[in-house]
């Protein structure tokens, strides 16, 4: 009964279009005033202690690092290297765009940043070489979502915080699925390009490839810092994020010289803006889940789900559907903060690994980012390509379907995600 009131109120408030963080907060306030005996002071305290954890601070650091990378010429070098490797195949530039997205994703934790960084360089170039804009924008919109699957990822940090899962294991677990998705997207692209006879680039010599690799190595070094650092225990995930922000600053300003020192203030401000928004949702979601736990709702819901005799397969199917539907209304961070605490206890009861569930949620979020009405990748790509949302939605379809197939594979093949963290002894 209480849970029905709580969720009903939340949905009603959210549908008015007010910020999700405010809807969460107001739901809690109303609930406290009318239905429970939780002392009001604890609300103020919770608003502070909700984000008083060092792990959460990885989020602003990763956002800052991502912003420096986007501005800093790192994407340009990665695209050059990728083009030298696969440019001579069918649909070469598009394949290079996918590969560059994958490389950028290795060091960046945001899918929107990946679309902006790679898309704003690759798309004009593709059009110049005679590819239709539809094709390029479709590819990059979906490939950009690799940003939250490969290694560091802001949604993964949020999931880790919401469910107390190891951040390092979640980062590493995304690598093998990420490579697989890259290959699948590449395969579809190659097929479409071959069928339509899209242009190919000149084959590069190994000397040129080596030169391109050497130039892009500054950006790729970040992988070593982030994963090497976390894995070997040199630093925590948050420290790794801070180090990568400083490193990305250094590379952008002093090595590639693509970002003038004057521009740093703007990068700091826009990163702070984005981080504060996420931290504000996290604070209020912490408040909300505090009430949920206080009312023992997650466990009651888990028991209810278990009593439905869905079985593991059925539970995973239902979770995917719920997450995909939620992806039509909210952004990834809000979905994870609201849904993860509910799905997690039930998943544990079914013996599903916490890291596997994290990757599954992550892939669901990727799908949500690539279709209307709220898919941010789509809006950003539409901004870069000057294509309307409806047109772009159709352009995205072949790759979006590929992604759904990939989602099924990830859901029912846990070893795909769990093998690497197991092999590295992180689980």
């Amino acid at each position: 009964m209480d849970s029905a009131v709580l969720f009903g109120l939340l949905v009603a408030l959210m549908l008015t279009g007010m910020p999700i963080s405010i809807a969460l907060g107001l739901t809690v306030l109303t609930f406290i005033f009318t239905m429970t005996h939780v002392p009001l002071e604890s609300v103020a305290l919770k608003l502070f202690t909700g984000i008083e954890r060092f792990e959460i601070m990885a989020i602003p650091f990763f956002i800052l690092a991502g912003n420096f990378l986007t501005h800093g010429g790192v994407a340009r070098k990665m695209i050059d290297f990728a083009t030298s490797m696969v440019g001579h195949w069918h649909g070469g530039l598009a394949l290079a765009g996918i590969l560059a997205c994958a490389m950028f994703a290795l060091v960046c934790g945001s899918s929107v940043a990946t679309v902006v960084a790679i898309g704003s360089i690759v798309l004009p170039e593709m059009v110049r070489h005679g590819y239709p804009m539809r094709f390029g924008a479709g590819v990059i919109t979906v490939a950009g979502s690799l940003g939250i699957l490969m290694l560091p990822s802001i949604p993964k940090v949020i999931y880790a915080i919401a469910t107390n899962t190891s951040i390092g294991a979640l980062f590493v677990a995304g690598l093998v699925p990420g490579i697989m998705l890259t290959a699948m997207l590449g395969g579809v692209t190659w097929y479409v390009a071959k069928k339509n006879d899209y242009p190919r680039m000149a084959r590069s010599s190994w000397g040129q490839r080596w030169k391109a690799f050497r130039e892009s190595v500054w950006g790729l070094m970040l992988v070593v810092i982030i994963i090497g650092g976390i894995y070997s225990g040199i630093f925590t995930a948050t420290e790794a994020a801070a180090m990568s922000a400083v490193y990305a600053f250094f590379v952008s300003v002093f090595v590639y010289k693509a970002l003038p020192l004057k521009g740093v203030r703007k990068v700091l401000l826009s990163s702070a803006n984005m981080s504060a928004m996420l931290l504000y949702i996290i604070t209020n979601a912490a408040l909300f889940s505090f009430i949920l736990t206080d009312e023992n709702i997650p466990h009651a819901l888990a028991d209810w789900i278990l009593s439905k005799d869905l079985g593991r397969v059925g539970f995973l199917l239902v979770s995917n559907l719920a997450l995909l539907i939620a992806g039509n209304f909210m952004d990834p961070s809000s979905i994870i903060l609201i849904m993860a605490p509910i799905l997690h206890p039930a998943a544990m009861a079914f013996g599903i690994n916490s890291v596997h569930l994290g990757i599954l949620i992550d892939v669901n979020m990727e799908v949500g980012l690539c279709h209307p009405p709220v898919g941010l990748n789509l809006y950003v790509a539409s901004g870069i390509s000057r294509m309307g949302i409806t047109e772009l939605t159709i352009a995205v379809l072949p790759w979006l379907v590929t992604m759904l197939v990939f989602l099924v594979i990830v859901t029912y093949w846990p070893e795909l995600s769990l093998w690497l963290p197991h092999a590295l002894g992180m689980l």
Partner: protein
Amino acid sequence: MRFLDQFEEWVIAALMGAATLLIFVAVVHRYASGIPWPAFQDWLLTVNLSWAQELCIYMFIWMAKFGAAYGVRTGIHVGVDVLVERLPERIARKTTLFGLLCGALFTGVVGTFGAKFVWEMAHTEQVSPDLGMPMWIVFLAIPSGSYLMCLRFLQVAWSFLHTGKLPHYDQARVEGIEPGPQAAPLPRGSA
């Protein structure tokens, strides 16, 4: 008002940069002090940076509270607008206004709670574990940030009532690269 705007921007950008530098220095210090450099190591060992983590958290909480207020001004706090967009214009306007006023209500209530909380805490001797900073100063972020946010919501509601416009956050633009058909420069060295 202009002064408040600039002050807000300056504070959150500075906190962001400073916290990053702080953690960077703390990590470098942790490993540098393990290297047996003569004399230098002794000096490094006398510097104690164990409070860095705590300070970083506090800086980010301040940044988050003030940044959230700034975010109201830039329109970055997104909501579910699927339904509102389908409503008839007149009702949609009222709904949006209701949402903004709810924002002001929530932040106002939280600010008041926070202020009471800080007031009570100021009469205790509580200090933070590593820095030894009085906790009420640290917690001051909640009332000041919330009241500022409340003010921002009222500001936005006021201008929405008069102009019918909401601040709109454009992701592609704020990320900094000029979108659109710019001719991508050829890689350095090849031109």
